[in-house]
C-alpha cells in the first residue's frame, strides 16, 4: 500500500482524526451503546451501526423528510442530526411503532388508504404523522397538509396520506380514494 503523501501527512498532523466517542441511545425502548465519530449523523448511526434500515436516506440534506424519526418524542430529520450530540436521547423509528404483531394505527391506516406507491418515503411520513398527532396543532386537512409539508412523496400519494392521517387524528373512518366513483 502506498504511504500517505506528504500533503496528507501534514494535514493529518494539523487535523488529527478525532477519537470516536461512546454514546448511549434509547432506540425503540432498547438501550444501545455505540462508538461513533463526531460526523456520524443519527441517520447513519441507525442504518449502519444499529441495524435499523427502516429509516430512509433520501436527499440527505433535510429537504425530503424520508429520514424523519422521533427524537425525545419530537419529529426531526435524522440526516441533519449529529448522533454525538444526542447522547442519552430516546429515538423512535418506524421499527418501533408497532406493538408486537399489532400495527400502529397510522401504519394500519396507510395500508387501508393505499397511502403509498413505492413506499420509500413512507417510514418518514408515518413517523412525521406520529409527531404531528402528538403536537396536536392540526385538525383540518389543510392544516395536515401544511404541517406535513416537510415530507415529500415523489409518487404523489398525498391525497391518500392526508386521508390516512385524518382518519387516525379524528378517530372517524375517512372516505377511501376511488370509493366515491364506484
Amino acid at each position, binding site marked *: 500500500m502506498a504511504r500517505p503523501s506528504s500533503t496528507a501527512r501534514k494535514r493529518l498532523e494539523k*487535523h488529527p*482524526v*478525532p477519537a470516536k*466517542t461512546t454514546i448511549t441511545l434509547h432506540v425503540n425502548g432498547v438501550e444501545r451503546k455505540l462508538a461513533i*465519530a*463526531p*460526523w456520524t*449523523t443519527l441517520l447513519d448511526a441507525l442504518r449502519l451501526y444499529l441495524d435499523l434500515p427502516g429509516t430512509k436516506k433520501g436527499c*440527505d*440534506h*433535510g429537504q425530503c*423528510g424520508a429520514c*424523519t424519526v422521533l427524537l425525545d418524542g*419530537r*419529529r*426531526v*430529520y435524522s440526516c*441533519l*442530526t*449529529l448522533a*454525538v*450530540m444526542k447522547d442519552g436521547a430516546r429515538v423512535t423509528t418506524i421499527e418501533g411503532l408497532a406493538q408486537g404483531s399489532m400495527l400502529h394505527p397510522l401504519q394500519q391506516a396507510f395500508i387501508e388508504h393505499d397511502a403509498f406507491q413505492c413506499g420509500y418515503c413512507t417510514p418518514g411520513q408515518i413517523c*412525521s404523522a406520529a*409527531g*404531528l398527532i402528538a*403536537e396536536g*396543532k392540526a385538525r*383540518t386537512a*389543510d*392544516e395536515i*397538509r*401544511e*404541517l*406535513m*409539508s*416537510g*415530507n415529500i412523496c415523489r409518487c404523489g400519494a398525498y391525497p391518500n396520506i392526508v386521508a390516512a392521517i385524518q382518519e387516525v387524528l379524528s378517530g372517524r373512518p375517512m372516505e377511501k380514494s376511488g370509493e366515491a366513483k364506484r
Partner: protein
Amino acid sequence: MNNFGYTRASDVADAVRQIAADPGAKFIAGGTNLIDLMKENVARPSRLIDITHLPLNNIEETQDGGLRIGALVPNSDLAYDPRIEARYPLLSSAILAGASQQLRNMASTGGNLLQRTRCFYFYDTTTPCNKREPGSGCSAIEGINRMHAILGTSEHCIATHPSDMCVALAALKARVLATGRDGQRSIAFPEFHRLPGDAPEIDSNLRADEIITAIELPPKGFAANYTYLKIRDRLSYAFALVSVAVGLDIEGGTIKEARLALGGVAHKPWRDRQAEAQLNGAPATRENFLRAAETVLRDARGFGHNDFKIELARRGILRALTQAARGTPQSQADTRIK
C-alpha cells in the same frame, strides 16, 4: 464533510473561551443549516462546540413588559408559546411560514439569525462566489438570479437572507443579546445583519468571539393588526420570493404607528423607516399603502430573472398592509392569499 473535533461548552463563559481560542471552530445548536453546509463542503470547521447544554432555553418576561427569548429555544416552541401567540402573533406566523415542522423542532432561535443564504452559487463549490470565496466573483449577477435580491445589493453579491423569523423580528424592533470576551452587549435588529457591500462573506456584525444568548422583544406586539404574507413558488416549505411583515397600530381608521419589513428581497430583513414614517399619522387607505410601497421600492433594481420581484413586492406590500388594517392576517395553512 471534513473531519472535525467535537467539544461541549459547559457554560456561556466556557463557550466564549473555546471559540476565542480556536478561530476554525464553530458553535453548533440545531445544526439544520451548518451540517448541510458541511456536507456541501461550504463550511469546513476544525471543531464543533456543542452549545445545546447551555441554560438558554427559556422565555421570560422583561422588566419593561416585553419578553426575553433564550437563544436555544426551538423555533417551534417559540411559535407555539402562548405568550408569543397572544402578544406577538406576527412572530408566531412568520416562524410557521418558514421551513418544515421537523426543521422548526430542531432549529434554535439564535441559529435562525445566523443561517446563511440559500443562493445556489454559494452552495455550489464549483462556481465563483464572493461570499464563499472572497474575490472570486459573483456568479448570480450574470447567472440564474430569480431568487436573488432587488434591494441593497452590491456589485459583489446579490444574495438574500433566507429567514422568515428575522423579518418579523425586524418589524417588532427586537434586540439581540450577545456575550463575548468584552462582556455582554445588546444589538438593535437593524444593526445585526449587514448589507453585502465589498465584504459579502460577513453576514452579521456579531464578533468572532461572541455568542448570541437571547432575543428581546419590546412590549409593543401589534397583536390586533398584523400579517405575515409570504409569497413563494409552492404553498409550503419553500423560501420566500417576497415576504412582508406588517404591524399597525390603528385608531379610528388612522395609523398611529406602522411597522413594515420585507424578506426575500435583500441581504438582510429590509425595514424602511421612511415608508413607515409616511404611514404614521396617515389614514389607512389604499393610496397611502401604495405610496408606502413605492417608497420602499424607490431604489429597487432587478438583475434579469428577478425583475418580477419589484412588482411582486409592490403588490405584496399593498396586500399585506390591507390584511393588517382589516385585521385579517394571512394564516400559513391558508391555500389562497386573503
